């Protein structure tokens, strides 16, 4: 009886830890894609202004930078082991090269903080500030993101 119970317990624990991992992976996926959407929203807000699709609005530009900065504050923690696969475009290099990835995350966080501090007010200043932040997108996605 007891051994049977123990086996059942062990089996359910294995299942449980399995589902905990899956839940964590899904949470991580949602957390990091939500954060990246804030980056995308900033890029859209600012690039629409700079291309003349919308009227220039320094306050809106700075608000989008601030939102991206807040959204990426814990970005490095959104990639637990095993949270790749499925819909995720997270590339294997994130876990194969954790130091490089951590450095890339620190860099975008530092650049976002600098962008908030810069508080640009003219289209030229917004362009310069945005350019500094946007350089991170391609550089990081090139190494750490899958193509599709």
């Amino acid at each position, binding site marked *: 009886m007891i051994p049977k119970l123990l086996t059942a317990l062990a089996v359910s624990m294995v299942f449980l830890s399995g589902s905990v991992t899956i839940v964590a992976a899904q949470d991580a996926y949602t957390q990091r894609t939500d954060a990246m959407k804030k980056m*995308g929203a900033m890029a859209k807000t600012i690039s629409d202004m700079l291309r003349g699709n919308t009227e220039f609005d320094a306050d809106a530009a700075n608000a989008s930078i601030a939102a991206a900065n807040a959204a990426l504050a814990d970005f490095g923690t959104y990639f637990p082991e095993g949270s790749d696969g499925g819909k995720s475009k997270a590339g294997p290099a994130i876990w194969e090269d954790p130091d490089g990835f951590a450095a890339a995350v620190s860099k975008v966080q530092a650049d976002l903080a600098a962008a908030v501090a810069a508080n640009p007010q003219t289209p030229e200043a917004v362009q310069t500030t945005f350019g500094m932040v946007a350089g991170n997108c*391609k550089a990081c996605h090139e190494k750490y993101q899958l*193509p*599709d």
Partner: protein
Amino acid sequence: MKRLLKILAILGVLGAGIAWIVTAPETVAEADLPDHTPDPGHGERVFLTGGCTSCHADSDAEGDDKLILTGGLAFATEFGTFHAPNISPDPDHGIGGWTMAEFVSAMKHGTSPGGSHYYPAFPYTSYTRMAVTDIMDLKAFMDTLPATDNIPPAHEVGFPFNIRRSLGGWKLLNMSDAWVASPTDPKALRGREIVEGAGHCSECHTPRNAIGGLLKDHWLAGGPNPDGEGRIPNITPSEDGIGSWTEDDIAYYLETGFTPDFDSVGSSMADVVDNMSKLPAEDREAIAAYLKAIPALPDSDIGLPATN
């Protein structure tokens, strides 16, 4: 019986003779080159379109170091591992000693100066559609780049493709200088030169058959990622592809790396966008016009692991 054997023997010799003839590497002779003074300035534009640095520069190179075409990048495929060669102007270890005709033969026919077939990891299956004058301009530009004496590793290939001559048969089946799509608009036609020629977009965006030939019925409908995990996206104007993108969206993406919903370019396409962003705007617009003009296809799942 004896007679039959004799006929069979003759047929066998004939067959082998024909096979030998049709697998012979093609070349271009110096005398066949057009009367054209190579223009290195235009050659740089061709160089950026082809994205030569993506495979031939050291993978860690940044900035101007990317212009050192040292070779060495490894392509692990199901046929073996190929290593990009040194194509810097070094006369001994690069291609500095090549004549113009040898360079054109390599690009148009995939034939080496020694008269053997190159492996199609070198995408001459696309370059064969390039204008010879563009290839001549490209060489003139590449001659201006720094030389390096680096010797990349040799290819590691299994049977039957370790017999170079067999690639003649491969080329017969899988190589053609005919255009694939037939747009009518002049802008899209210019785009076709870029996409189907020097840009060699189909080499990643089109799936391949069992021996590695491009499946033209699935032109640009996406395929497995040659660099490993994941897939290369469908770029036809379908729902699975980029049907919702406008021409402006495509051109803007090629300039900045931002998709219409402001995701940012990643993976090996980042280098492509780096190069495309340096081209004149009209080239990006031409690519966009072509990509909107080709047949809209559903995602191809050929060669991909089943998804759940």
